[in-house]
């Protein structure tokens, strides 16, 4: 029982990080209808910025995270402006290849700038673990922070897309860009803003991911990137609650598969579950069932 609960908590902790990354994926997909393969590498850049802020310049970790968010926000907007905006009308495969190019660029740029050797991310979330059930069950500070940040981000995004003018503009653009433009919405600004928010979330997720898996290399972002992408599809890509649900489920399945079945087959099981889910619900758990029109 204690082992089960420990694994469940670990799964939720990891799942919260996936959920934050998946939120970025899902927002960008919802509005730009593109798979942004460079998202995972934005996570890596965020983690590096925070790493240098904390360990080289000895800044407060909170300042480090904020700095990472600022850098990633700018990076996301620059990438969108230079690489994706000129391809707004292009076939989706061209955009996908460009995103892969951006991903290669960020990985190799990071390798040139910061070297390919492992960097140990400093443990900055210090504090005593919560003791539950007479000390049998320990919930680490990292877990608490992951879950709290995930919930806060989720609530903030729900409020943002539901209540603010910019958020409503985003929803309008994701439904019909042409009609949104006719209603006086600046589509370019809206898309740029979506990339900014998605990238800022990636920075936060990068730092949180590093506090659980503290080895930092230029390819750090790829695997959580692919997993979060899977999580977004799992929950129904384009849906914000779906990303949260998909992320949490994926994290829990991953930890359970590793704990109860086999660590070597952990990833295979995660992807197998995804395939089964897509067979039963072809647009993900919370995705909209779209009728094809002739």
């Amino acid at each position, binding site marked *: 029982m204690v082992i089960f609960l420990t694994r469940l908590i670990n799964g939720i902790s990891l799942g919260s990080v996936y959920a934050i990354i998946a939120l970025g994926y899902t927002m960008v997909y919802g509005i730009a209808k593109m798979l942004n393969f460079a998202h995972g590498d934005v996570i890596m850049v965020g983690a590096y910025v925070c790493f240098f802020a904390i360990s080289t310049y000895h800044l407060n970790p909170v300042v480090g995270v904020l700095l990472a968010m600022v850098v990633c926000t700018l990076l996301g907007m620059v990438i969108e402006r230079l*690489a994706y905006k000129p391809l707004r009308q292009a*076939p989706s495969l061209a955009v996908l290849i460009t995103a892969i190019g951006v991903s*290669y*660029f960020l990985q190799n740029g990071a390798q040139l700038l910061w070297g390919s050797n492992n960097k140990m991310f400093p443990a900055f979330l210090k504090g005593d673990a919560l003791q539950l059930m007479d000390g049998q069950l320990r919930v680490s500070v990292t877990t608490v922070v992951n879950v709290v940040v995930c919930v806060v981000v989720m609530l903030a995004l729900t409020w943002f897309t539901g209540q603010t003018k910019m958020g409503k503009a985003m929803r309008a653009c994701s439904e019909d860009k042409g009609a949104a433009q006719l209603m006086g919405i600046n589509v370019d600004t809206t898309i740029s803003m979506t990339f900014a928010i998605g990238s800022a979330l990636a920075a936060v997720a990068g730092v949180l991911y590093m506090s659980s898996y503290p080895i930092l290399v230029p390819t750090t972002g790829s695997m959580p990137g692919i997993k979060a992408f899977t999580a977004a599809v799992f929950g129904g890509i384009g849906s914000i609650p779906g990303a949260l649900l998909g992320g949490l489920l994926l994290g829990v399945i991953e930890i359970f598969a590793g704990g109860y079945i086999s660590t070597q087959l952990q990833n*295979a099981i995660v992807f197998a579950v*995804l395939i089964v889910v*897509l067979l039963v619900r*072809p647009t993900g758990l919370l995705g909209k069932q779209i009728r094809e029109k002739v």
Partner: protein
Amino acid sequence: MNKLKRLSPATRSNYLTYLGVILAFAILQPMAAGGKLSPTLQGQLVPICAYVVMTLSLNLTVGVLGELSLGHAGFMSVGAFSGAVAASALQYSIPNGGLRLAVAMVIGAVFAGIVGVLISVPVLRLNGDYLAIVTLAFGQIIKSIVENLYVGVDGKGMLHASFLKPLTSLGEGGRMIVNGPMGIPNIAEISSFIAGFILILITLAVIFNLVNSRAGRAIMAIRDNRIAAESVGLNITKYKMMAFVTSAALAGAAGTLFALGQPAIVASKFDFNTSILILVYVVLGGQGKMWGSIIAATFLTVLPETPAMRGLADYRMLVYAVVLIVVMLVTNSPAIQSFFSRFQKEAERENGKGGEQA
């Protein structure tokens, strides 16, 4: 020459593709045999052939069938491992290297084809990005499974396989072939440039014959408009599966060719990045254009090894990324497209009829 002009543009382009491949082989083979090529290029001849076949086969899925596959390296992996195991197990029964390679390639293609059938059942029920993510997932699953596979042969020549735990029951005279995460550590290199060349020709023949057949036209009709194709009575699943499985089997043969030209292979070689690399070749060469695939795969495999790129040393992958982005931006920019379409229109006027897409 007159005869060539009377052919339809598609057939002409197909013949020119064969001709180009044969010419390239006729030039390179004597050079390779005479030791005129640089050692790096010499060592790359077999991998180039394997990548060309991979690109051609993926082009069948992406260009002709019109579905995005992000797990093509998975089929290559299946072909590489099953083919290499077959070659190793048959080492004494078939002493002739060339024949053993051919048998191994057939086995690799059959295994990859079987996996292709298994995968196509769930994959082809989905569309668009969802299909892409499922192929990605399958690529990862195949990699995980192969990484945990142990295959050995005992003294009597019987194959033994086990999953997740190393083999212990091989007994006297037995030997390990596939060693889990370490892959296959000692491969007899029996692949040759000639074999690669023949495989490319076979691949081209298979693809051109499929594309120019009734089934091929059905597949392209599905690509262009699935609903319209379905409404005229085409069996969507059957034709999609035909293209997908053919593509998988060819990739399997390419995998065998690749593996048997390497001293050792590991499962992690055939990961997501390899799938993406092949996809990049397909897109840069032009979707549905087989000659484009051949040129793109050859050029982009050689490019990072050329002296000019070697001079860039650490910067070469960065330059590669920039080239990729710039090519995509330039080829999709409206200004450039209208510039080229002007030429195309003039050429069409001279021909007196609309140019057919090859």
